[in-house]
């Protein structure tokens, strides 16, 4: 159970049951659907950009506890951040969940997102943890279509 609890941390379970910013944003000027065909996880990320800043962000969809909690906590972490800051955070987060050392010493701290460190012990779940981030990345690049993890 020890390892399982590493993956399913209380904060993750809590976010998966009561996701934050779980709504469509009518004012969104970026909208991307992220889809993992392997497990059927599907989220739509809504982003309201103001210049280079993520003014507001929301998401909707269905997926496992890891993907939903990750999407929820991502929205909290990137709200108000610049595009570059959000991208740096994604890079840092990706390193965390894949168990890679952080290359950039100046990268912003992950804060609460550290709770996903247990994912690195479950390689099959990395795509769950990064699905929303991939969709956000696509949205920040101005893509409007769907992205897939495959």
């Amino acid at each position, binding site marked *: 159970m020890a390892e*399982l*609890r590493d993956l399913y941390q209380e904060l993750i379970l809590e976010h998966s049951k009561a996701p934050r910013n779980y709504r469509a944003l009518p004012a969104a000027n970026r909208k991307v659907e992220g889809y993992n065909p392997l*497990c*059927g996880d599907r989220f739509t990320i809504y982003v309201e950009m103001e210049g280079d800043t993520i003014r507001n962000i929301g998401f909707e969809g269905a*997926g*496992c506890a*890891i993907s*939903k909690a990750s999407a929820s906590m991502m929205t909290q972490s990137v709200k108000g951040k610049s595009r570059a800051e959000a991208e740096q955070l994604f890079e840092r987060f990706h390193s965390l969940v894949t168990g890679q050392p952080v290359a950039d010493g100046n990268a912003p701290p992950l804060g609460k997102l550290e709770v996903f460190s247990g994912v690195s012990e479950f390689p099959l*779940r990395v795509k769950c943890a990064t699905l929303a981030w991939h969709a956000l990345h696509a949205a920040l690049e101005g893509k409007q279509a769907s992205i897939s993890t495959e």
Partner: protein
Amino acid sequence: MTTAARKFPTEPRDAAAPAATCAIDIQKVRADFPILRQEVHGKPLVYLDNAATSQKPRVVIEALTRYYERSNANIHRGVHYLSERATEDYEAARGIAAGFLGAAQSSEIVFVRGATEAINLVAQTFGRTRVGAGDEILLTTMEHHSNIVPWQMLCQEKGARLRVAPISDSGELLLDEFEKLLGPKTRLVAVTHVSNALGSINPIRQIVAMAHDRGVPVLVDGAQAVPHLRVNVRELGCDFYAFSGHKVYGPTGIGVLYGKAELLEAMPPYQGGGDMISSVSFEKTTYNRVPFKFEAGTPHVAGAIGLGVALAYVNSLGLENIGAHEHALLEYATAAVSAIPGIRLIGTAREKAGVLSFVMEGVHPHDIGTILDQEGIAIRTGHHCSEPVMQRFGIPATARASFAVYNTFEEVDALVRGIEKVREVFA
């Protein structure tokens, strides 16, 4: 053809014997499967992903090794001893497969990579010559993607269209609706024998009778049926029957397409190459006779031989015995799992084989899969390559436990304990 099918108005109930009559010693069977003797994450492996692929008995593994150590040669062409022996073993395997399916003759058995290739072969040969603009191919909602996409590709090419017979809330084919969709434009019915996502057994004889009444041939995807039910293609009356070796204790990369001789004869070749020809010049090629016409290139000789050994192994246990044991497991698991609060079974057809699909309130199947894996229990989670089934039930995915002859009641208990653990984690 229709008369023959009508001789058997009811479907077989192969898998209906109670547990008490189980005629095989399951512990002895388990000892035949080396892979089962291991621990996963410190727990004994409980392998319940048999609908994805079954494990292999030692006799199959040894047959592959023996072939490569003693017989390996190319077939149908060498004059030397090894080639002769490899050819004999390969063709003997074809004979075993023919007997296994109750085919009239071995030449009705085409070796392919698996059920997927078998269906693609029929779509690209029979389909391309028989299906034209405005024609229809009739499927059901419960098809695996491998019995959807090849027909979709054919329809796109020919300007034909797919019709889809619906299923009930319990996962049974609605036969009345199916019959209504059989029309003057229907050129082929392609239907699964057993649903991989739901476990439902389709009434193939009735389906064939309805289709043949209108002169429509029927392809049956038997990938999930042959490991569990005694199949006799002549009793079923179907025109094509496809299955994969790896789901019936055989090697991966080998499978069987059964086709009625007169249909195979009339079909153009699938792929061009060596072994599928009688003579070749730059002006004209004469194709080999069936089934060789459909087996271009050096086939998976070792795989075919291994498949023959696997089918003989199944025969030695007796499919009726296998089916009875699995049915008892399924009934036991169905009662135990459905008693867990928050569980909903997906697929509750009266006639089922091998598969227990379920969802759990508030917990995604993927999380169930990860937590069970930590308990050493292998199940499948996801859409099971049957997205239309998921859409039909309004769910993104299910967790699926699927049984084989070597599974035990204790393993079902472990599954139930594992699901209880999922509830604890998500409490």
